[in-house]
């Protein structure tokens, strides 16, 4: 009985701590607007809240932080620029939320941003989280721009307030597939995926494009995002003698896949999507990774505008990792539309956002009827000496060597 009492007391204490904490939870939030409002000039300012959301904890927290940084930078610059909206000076505050890359948490924090009455949202990072969350923003009529969710379904839901500034999987898939078909001229290609929304979606697009270009595609092979032993699948593929292998999945599974393929003596060219387009592939597969092809939606960070890169480096003392230039542009798009509409009311500035024509850190941005970016770029990389290096950019169906593309960006 003593033990039982102890356990109960312990539990009660823990819960009490939890509950008091819960009561306190309002405090840091409540004074925030006041404190923020006291900094700008006392004249009647328009207080505009922008939400940013992504995984700030968990396995891809570093990418979430990178996305957040892009928005932080944009907001800071907007506040420094002393923008006036509706005749009054505007002050932007950022509300940052963590969706843990979990769909359930994603909808909860989306609701929280709606509760906080944000004027617009930049996020989320993962497609799987962005899609359910977008329904909540849609109900609330709050514009949302993602800088990294590439799944086509997101903008196929018919929501007029959901946008993306990055290429879709059905742009990325065809881009890497066409590049593969054009440069390597394979006759038979094996397509493998990791049974995730991302991997399967991308692999489907690649298979479709390859078939339409007259390449024979083998029956799809699959693993999971936790598969470590690919040998059975690879052995089967080896028997069919493909010239190239495409894998839709992350580096964690792609690395071992490539290593084991070489151990089995498969000499085909390997191609991957953005999930496995990292230097980590070299760590995981060693020398076997050399020469792999891969693609990334959008342009590599180093190709973003110089002004952005310098400002980012100055502010965060590091270089952007992946999608920061896109979230930076996304936040600026919201602000630009508000300026054009002369209002931070989502209903009023949304039409301007739909018709926007903006030149950002990642180049010219316009949205099509679905809310996707017109002429989004896809970059092709190759693994050289243990590093992925850009070799070409695919834009509106055309492949441009990377050097030329950099020149055109510099000239613009």
């Amino acid at each position, binding site marked *: 009985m003593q033990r039982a009492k102890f356990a109960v007391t312990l539990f009660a204490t823990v819960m009490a701590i939890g509950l008091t904490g819960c009561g306190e939870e309002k405090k840091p939030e409540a004074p925030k607007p006041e404190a923020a409002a006291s900094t700008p000039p006392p004249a009647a300012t328009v207080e505009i809240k922008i939400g940013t959301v992504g995984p700030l904890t968990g396995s891809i927290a570093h990418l979430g932080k990178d996305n957040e940084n892009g928005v932080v930078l944009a907001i800071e610059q907007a506040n420094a620029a002393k923008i006036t909206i509706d005749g009054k000076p505007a002050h932007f505050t950022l509300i940052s939320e963590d969706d843990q890359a979990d769909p359930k948490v994603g909808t909860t924090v989306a609701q929280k941003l709606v509760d906080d009455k944000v004027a617009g949202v930049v996020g989320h990072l993962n497609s799987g989280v962005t899609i359910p969350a977008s329904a909540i923003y849609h109900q609330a009529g709050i514009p949302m721009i993602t800088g990294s969710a590439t799944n086509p379904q997101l903008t196929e839901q018919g929501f007029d307030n959901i946008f993306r500034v990055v290429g879709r999987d059905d742009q990325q898939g065809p881009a890497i597939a066409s590049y593969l078909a054009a440069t390597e001229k394979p006759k038979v290609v094996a397509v493998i995926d990791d049974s995730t929304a991302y991997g399967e979606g991308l692999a489907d697009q690649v298979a479709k494009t390859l078939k339409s270009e007259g390449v024979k595609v083998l029956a799809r092979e699959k693993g999971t995002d936790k598969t470590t032993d690919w040998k059975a699948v690879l052995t*089967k593929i080896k028997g069919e003698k493909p010239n190239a292998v495409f894998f839709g999945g992350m580096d964690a599974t792609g690395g071992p896949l490539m290593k084991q393929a070489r151990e089995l003596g498969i000499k085909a060219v390997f191609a991957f999507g953005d999930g496995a387009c990292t230097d980590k592939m070299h760590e995981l597969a060693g020398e076997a990774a050399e020469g792999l092809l891969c693609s990334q939606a959008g342009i590599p960070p180093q190709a973003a505008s110089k002004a952005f890169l310098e400002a980012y480096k100055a502010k965060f003392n590091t270089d952007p990792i992946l999608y920061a230039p896109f979230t930076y542009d996304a936040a600026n798009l919201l602000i630009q539309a508000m300026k054009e509409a002369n209002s931070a009311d989502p209903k009023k500035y949304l039409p301007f956002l739909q018709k926007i024509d903006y030149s950002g850190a990642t180049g010219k941005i316009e949205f099509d009827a679905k809310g996707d970016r017109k002429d989004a770029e896809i970059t092709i990389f190759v693994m050289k000496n243990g590093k992925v290096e850009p070799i070409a950019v695919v834009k509106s169906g055309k492949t441009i060597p990377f050097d030329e593309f950099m020149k055109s960006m510099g000239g613009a």
Partner: protein
Amino acid sequence: MDTFIQQLINGLTLGAVYAIVALGYTMVYGIIQLINFAHGEVVMIGAMVAFTVINALAGSGLPPLAVVLIGTGCAIPVCVLVGYAMERLAYRPLRRAPRLAPLITAIGVSIILQNLAMLVWSRNILAFPQIIDIKLYNIAGATITNVQIVIILTCILIMVALAALVYRTRLGTAMRATAQNPQVAGLMGIDINRVIAATFAIGAGLAAVAGVMVGTYYGIAQYTMGSILGLKAFTAAVLGGIGNVPGAMLGGVVLGIVEALGAGYIGTYTDLCKISGISDWLTQRCANDGHFVLFGSNYQDVFAFAVLIMVLVFRPSGLLGERVGDRA
């Protein structure tokens, strides 16, 4: 044919790994009828410790084999300690409790170990330094690597050593006695607690070896790697007849081969386009797509679970096990 042999080699290697992990399950179950749910996590910790050591020594100029052996040498004591602590803190107090109780604590322990490992080694996939020169050998058109050969040989060695331990030593006799009837064994002067703790420690030591093998073979380690491996290995143990040492070995190898052959062939044999003449609709589908695969390699993980369920339902004693009575 060379494809088939290659698949057998793949399955054999995979099976050898399953087998060593399965030994840990089977020994513990054999002696106290407990499914040590957290055993897979011990394997993970073994791999993680080995990773840390091997990573630190990778640039030291020691020969690769020595580095791996030192890594294993460090992983074993850590895992034995974890295994012992687990038994002492989470299972021993519950030895007389209803059967559900230790199973639930085992789940709890495995969650705790996984998350502690995450705090120590981060969430990231850890890439083992590629220190071993992989050599390929040809067997009838199939390839086998030096690492695969080592894994299979180690597995056989461990199995022989374990059989010797169980059937030739005093400790082994005590273990078998405890397994048959703990009360009587106690009356005969056997310190049951020590015997059980020793069983856990040996199982954990084997888990450490398995962890190192998995880590060096696949080149990666992550804090989540233990759960699925543990489940597969448990399946192997049940398949072979849980509580039976050679059974665990056989079960592991059979499961590995079933998985490899399943992933390798089921797609080919369930591709309805081979018989596309039977319906117009199918003919049309096949003309468009070329394949109509009912079950492909995507069901690889289902095979293991299906085997498990089938064995438990039709032959709960497994391939080599004795008949299991009512154990409620």
